[in-house]
């Protein structure tokens, strides 16, 4: 197998606040290959956005600090990129779609201003004249099915609806022709009816351009529809990963099982069961496996040590002591 496009290894990220150090990312391990559509699922607050921002290195650097680990993109160590080259990296290699399109667009500038600047500073925009950049910006808007692109370029974000703003954010991300797209909850702030449209659009775009995508979401439904492979995340670490189909057929980690059981089904009776408890306090996280206080199958060892990721099968790994510590299966 080729070396993956993105390889995050044992990433630890903390935030320094009054109460102490919030140890948010606790040894995250994930990878994305060329042209792959990978999902990252987890509850609100489990650190998904932090990972995305760490890859782009846009975490606000007083409170946040990378404590350990590595992020490799096309065999370059992202955490070591110098400030000078960081800009080029962000412009041309990795792009991000933000969760809240209203907050992600500068309210006092036109859409065109921001879109054209993002093209101008990427390699795709190298040496292009202003008119050419304008045309590219307009065609990026057309690619996201926004009609009347030239008029929209002159509009301000406040004049557009939520769905349109989200499409603009997508356009911003694809216009630079980056190799990796980080989509952070791209549909969460939209109406359900629009969500579907936007996801479809995203899928088409990504397949056309063969861009790798990391889709971050808390919705299992979205992941199932859209991704080839999934990571399940809890409280700052990956607890399970598998090809999407396999994950839904054979969820192994107790957390994954809990999540899937919590989805109400059309068939079957009764109210869907939730998972007891809440996400931990990152300043004083549980010892060992961070899920153990809520786990119905917790064992003594779970409080003592962190479970490593073990292989369960082809494209299926889980971090749980139920499945042994070495590479044997259950």
């Amino acid at each position, binding site marked *: 197998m080729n070396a993956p496009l993105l390889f995050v290894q044992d990433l630890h990220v903390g935030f320094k606040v009054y109460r102490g150090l919030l140890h948010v990312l606790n040894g995250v391990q994930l990878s994305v290959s060329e042209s792959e559509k990978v999902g990252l699922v987890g509850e609100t607050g489990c650190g998904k956005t932090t990972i995305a*921002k760490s890859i*782009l290195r*846009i975490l*606000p650097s007083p409170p946040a600090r990378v404590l350990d680990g590595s992020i490799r993109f096309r065999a370059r160590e992202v955490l070591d990129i110098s400030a000078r080259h960081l*800009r*080029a*990296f*962000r*412009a*041309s290699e*990795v*792009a*991000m779609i*933000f969760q*809240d399109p209203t*907050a*992600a*667009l*500068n*309210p*006092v*500038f036109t859409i065109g201003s*921001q879109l054209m*600047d*993002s093209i101008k*500073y*990427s390699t795709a925009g190298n040496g292009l004249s202003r008119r050419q950049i304008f045309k590219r910006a307009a065609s990026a808007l057309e690619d996201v099915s926004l009609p009347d692109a030239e008029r929209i370029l002159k509009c*301000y974000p*406040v*004049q*557009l*609806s*939520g769905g*349109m*703003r989200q499409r603009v*954010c997508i356009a*911003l991300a694809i216009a*630079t022709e980056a190799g990796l797209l980080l989509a952070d909850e791209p549909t969460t702030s939209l109406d359900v009816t629009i969500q579907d449209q936007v996801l479809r659009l995203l899928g088409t775009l990504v397949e056309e351009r063969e861009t790798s995508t990391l889709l971050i979401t808390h919705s299992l439904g979205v992941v199932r529809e859209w991704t080839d492979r999934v990571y399940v995340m809890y409280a700052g670490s990956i607890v399970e990963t598998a090809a999407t189909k396999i994950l839904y057929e054979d969820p192994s980690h107790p957390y994954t099982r809990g999540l899937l059981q919590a989805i109400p089904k059309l068939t079957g009776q009764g109210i869907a069961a939730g998972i007891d408890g809440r996400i931990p306090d990152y300043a004083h996280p549980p010892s060992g496996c961070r899920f153990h206080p809520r786990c119905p199958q917790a064992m003594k060892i779970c409080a003592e040590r962190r479970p490593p990721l073990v292989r369960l099968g082809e494209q299926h790994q889980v971090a749980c002591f139920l499945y042994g510590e070495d590479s044997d299966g259950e």
Partner: protein
Amino acid sequence: MKTLKWLGKRLMHSIGVLIGLSILIFLITRVMPGDPARVALGARAPAPVVEALRQDMHLDEPIYVQYYFWLLGALKGDFGESLFTRRAVVDDIKEFLPATMELALCAGLLMAGIGVFLGAISAKRENSWLDNSVRAVAYLGIVTPPFIFAILFVFLLGYLLPIFPTMGRLSTGVAVPPVVTGMVTIDAIISGNFRAFIDALWHIFLPALSLAMAGIAQESRITRSSIIDNIRKDYVGAERSCGIPERRILWKYLLRPSLIPTVSIMGLDFACTLGNAFLVELVFNWPGFSRYGINAMLRKDLNAVTAVILVIGFVFLIVNIIVDLVITYLDPRIRLGAQRGK
């Protein structure tokens, strides 16, 4: 078109305020103890002369009648005669106002330019030694009254290191350029007299700086905190992730939204500049409108006081309108707010 309508409404509102202000001032000045006519003419003036002046000023009639006569005159551009200089107040204003306006405008430029610039670089390098020194100096600027700055500058840069002149608008021997606006610097440029222009700038620098210090401090603080607030916003992260260079982010994408609170404060600071102008004019012997106003107040020169306050009120109202226009330009959400999408 919408802007014009808005402008029209504001002007109507401002006129209303000016009228209200004139009534207020009128009441204040007429309510005081003592006899204005006697005060103006001195203790030794003969009674009939005083009486004649009293008739002239309608001082014996009810106050609304007095106001009526005054308003009539004002609308014709006649604010009466100054009890002290014995000329039409309007002429006094024409002579002295440009000097103060020149001073205030210079101070305004200094505030806007230096203040915003310092605030921006201070925010960019938050918590560095540069940031902390700028903040410390800004603090001193806010807590020090302008007259102390005036005295300080006169002393440091006028006596100790005699770099700047400490009196007047032009050095003796430099010809006053032909009066167009009354503002020596601009008149000098208009008439092509470069030497006079430099000389005038040299004279205006210290007084303008003394006036501007508080404003510079305020602007730099507000710009700084505004940029720092906005730096944490998502759109900055989004712009960074698009690869837009930091410098462009600061001077284009951060500056404009951050200027919005700054510009609002600038209007207020300009008002304070107008208010404090007299302190500086006194220390630097600047023949300005505020000094004229203070003297009028101390001598209970009613017509002059009323006119002075109205003129300042008028200037301030215009400045406020300009400030609001600028803010509307800077923040499209205000003019487009009605069409808010979902």
